[in-house]
């Protein structure tokens, strides 16, 4: 069952289209990622889902509600963690949790929520004294304290150190496992690959691709990456003529090729024909990173 439906969404600022015909649906219980470069229209898209912006055209439904017309009812089913938000510097964690719980008609119990997010020891700490990771965990708690069916997390781990980032990922998985649908905006490939069931890559206001992370990697031109240091120079023209080749680069005598299975076989054949040895030969799957660069390059 679809919880979020976005159909042909459009939004312009000052005549410049920021979101230019975006459509996607998010199924109940899914972690759905929105990936894209800065300024691609990710945040504007989710702000239309949250009802914070009025679309110029298109249709948005969250649990059957129009986020603008039914904004009051929307706030009871959707929790949001906003990009670059702050709280009052002198508000303590416990006060913030109690306040935001009181704003909802049927809130979750904030105590176990604080426990789950590792905030119990910080209840009396003022917002201004929290670390970046603690602030983000508090924002997740505030997004969840209304007991929503859907939660939107926008650039959740930006500015966190690697350990705090991994802890936050585990938390997002726990949120999903508790039955909440997650819409996740990110520009970290690793985050999307690790967490998301499906990913929409947005570039210049349009959806460049929408698939599972594995599907995106498979679909991109260079799904396989081959790296080696040849024992003798190879003819550049022959390399460029390799079947299925997506990209080629040289660095310090080392060659990196991206392509498909046929490229691997052709490289091995080429090396054998010229009796060239490949030192430190590595063949691996491309990451979402490679697929993403490939996808956003072709549209820009």
């Amino acid at each position, binding site marked *: 069952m679809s919880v979020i439906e976005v159909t042909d969404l459009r939004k312009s600022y000052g005549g410049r289209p920021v979101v230019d015909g975006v459509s996607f649906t998010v199924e109940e219980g899914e972690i759905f990622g929105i990936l894209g470069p800065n300024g691609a229209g990710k945040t504007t898209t989710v702000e239309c889902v949250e009802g914070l912006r009025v679309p110029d055209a298109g249709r948005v439904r969250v649990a059957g509600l129009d986020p603008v017309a039914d904004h009051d009812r929307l706030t009871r089913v*959707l929790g949001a963690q906003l990009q670059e938000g702050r709280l009052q510097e002198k508000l303590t964690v416990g*006060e913030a949790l109690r306040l935001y719980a009181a*704003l*909802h008609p049927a809130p979750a119990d904030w105590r176990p929520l604080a426990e789950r997010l590792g905030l119990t020891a910080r209840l009396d700490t003022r917002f201004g004294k929290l670390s970046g990771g603690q602030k983000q965990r508090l924002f997740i708690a*505030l997004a969840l304290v209304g007991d929503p069916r859907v939660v939107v997390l926008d650039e959740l781990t930006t500015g966190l150190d690697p350990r705090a980032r991994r802890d936050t990922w585990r938390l997002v998985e726990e949120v999903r496992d508790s039955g909440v649908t997650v819409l996740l905006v990110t520009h970290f490939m690793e985050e999307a690959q690790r967490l998301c069931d499906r990913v929409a890559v947005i570039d210049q206001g349009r959806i460049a691709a929408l698939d599972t992370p594995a599907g995106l990697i498979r679909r991109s031109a260079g799904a396989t990456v081959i790296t080696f240091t040849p024992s003798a120079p190879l003819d550049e023209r022959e390399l460029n003529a390799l079947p299925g080749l997506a990209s080629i680069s040289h660095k310090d005598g080392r060659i990196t090729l991206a392509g498909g299975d046929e490229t691997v076989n052709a490289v091995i054949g080429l090396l054998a024909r010229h009796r060239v040895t490949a030192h430190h030969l590595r063949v691996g799957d491309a990451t979402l990173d490679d697929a993403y660069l490939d996808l956003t390059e072709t549209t820009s």
Partner: protein
Amino acid sequence: MNTAVLRTEARLLAREPGSLFWILAFPPLLLVILGSVPAFREPQDALGGLRVVDTYVPVTVLVGLIVAGVQAMPAGLTGYREHGILRRMATTPVRPSALLSAQMLVHAVAAVLSALLTLTVGRVLSDVHLPRQPFGYLLALLLAVLAALALGSLISAVSPTVKVAGAVGTVVFFPMLFCAGVWLPVPSMPDLMADIVVLTPFGAAARALGDATAGDWPGWADLGVMAGWAVLLSGAAARWFRWE
């Protein structure tokens, strides 16, 4: 108005020593200092038998109110917009306007408390009699509070950041203090100057509070000037206020 939001805002204002000092402590302190100057305790014929310290009670009442409305509140409101606190509230079932009204109410209460403190200090330490027309005084005070909050809201509406709100607040602050009579109380001003000053919200407030203290019903012109400014300024604030 949401009580949880209101409680939180009251608690947060109580954690701002700067605001508390300038709103609640500074005006009574100013009156104590003026009241301790012997010459200011002598009745003056030029003031119709009043002492200088008497003429400064409405002024110090207005100082607390101007600090609350023009300095403290705009910085708070603008920060709530700049830091995305209004936006976060917009994602909950409670409207972000609840935060604005809570901010206005706590600053209004602080301003009225400041006025009561000042009147008490004046009565106890300098033997200034309490307003002889209390209802007229209360009405004038409430209109002055409304005008101060409306002015503060307008400052916050036109200021994109806390820094700008602070700068605009300071630019507006000193002329308002002048009109309230900090440098020269309205009764001591030359006629032409007084005629102009009572067309401003706090000039009118100073004269209305002075009249009510003496036992007269405040002039309808002064009450009208304050009400008019309150309507005009809050209309402009509503017109230009941006939620983000």
